[in-house]
């Protein structure tokens, strides 16, 4: 087994820890956080009220996901400390969203100062670019090709919703598109989790 074989094996072992739908659940929750505020704000709630109403839903779901991971998935897969190279990649991945947010804030500030550019920044571009950058970075650093697809899907949801809004004239088309995609991801997460539970039994010593 040469170095490339060992790298492939390491990648396979690492990705096996994400086969239970953790990433899909996380993506679904991320989309819910976009979809529910859009739905609430179009139902007459203010922006802050919409965000505050969504927060508990997202928090509860996130807690559920982490509890499932801690008490259901990890006991079945075992605990592993990966090699320093892999840990470095993961820490780089954490930096990317932070840098994206900082860059977004700077660009947003510059654009908001310029009236002719303002409509671009508050429009669709951040909703397309941010998921593509974050998911692209995750795909690259975690060696998981499917995350490129997820990034493209999440990045396209917002413009698709906007487009469908022009075709199906309804004020709820955009949130419905985002929420539909969110539930698709949550559904995928559930299917992956069920398949995982069928494959792996909790070991008895």
């Amino acid at each position, binding site marked *: 087994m040469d170095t490339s074989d060992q790298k492939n094996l390491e990648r396979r072992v690492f990705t096996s820890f994400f086969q239970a739908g953790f990433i899909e659940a996380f993506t679904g929750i991320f989309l819910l956080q976009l979809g529910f505020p859009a739905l609430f704000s179009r139902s007459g709630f203010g922006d802050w009220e919409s965000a505050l109403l969504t927060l508990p839903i997202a928090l509860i779901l996130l807690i559920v996901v982490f509890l499932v991971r801690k008490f259901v998935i990890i006991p079945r897969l*075992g605990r592993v*400390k990966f090699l320093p190279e892999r840990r470095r990649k993961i820490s780089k991945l954490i930096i990317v969203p932070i840098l994206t947010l900082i860059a977004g804030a700077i660009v947003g500030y510059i654009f908001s100062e310029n009236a002719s550019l303002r409509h671009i920044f508050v429009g669709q571009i951040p909703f397309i670019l941010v998921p593509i950058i974050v998911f692209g970075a995750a795909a690259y650093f975690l060696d998981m090709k499917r995350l490129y697809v997820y990034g493209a899907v999440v990045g396209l949801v917002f413009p698709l919703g906007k487009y469908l809004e022009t075709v199906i004239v309804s004020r709820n088309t955009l949130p419905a598109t985002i929420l539909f995609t969110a539930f698709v991801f949550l559904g995928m997460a559930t299917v992956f989790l069920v398949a995982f539970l069928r494959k792996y039994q909790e070991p008895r010593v």
Partner: protein
Amino acid sequence: MKELENQGKKQTTDSLSEIMNIDRLVHSPARLSILTYLSVVEEGDAVYLLNQTGLTWGNLSANITRLQEAGYIEVVKEFKDKKPHTLLKLTDRGRKAFHDYQNKMRGLLDVQTDRVNNMDNCDTSGARESC
């Protein structure tokens, strides 16, 4: 031609002596599998190995003991959430033994592949005299 035949015989003898020098502790499929999966992580627990190698608890436990006795792996028994938890780590000695085994096997396979290729070339060219 005799020279080539002698060279071939010498190669076979060298290969055989190399085979005899293979670390038998590593060579067993179960132990090789354990070492392989431990070589791609810094440390992992018994459940991780159980899932990845597909061995039974008894088989895994017996082979872990043998590798531990040889000083190839380090076993730490601890309690996590009031449950026993066995953590395994490849030692420097184990890592070296694993890499030596890999290199030896690769060398042996390369020699054998070359020999087979040479024989194939001789068969296809039909020039028996040059072989």
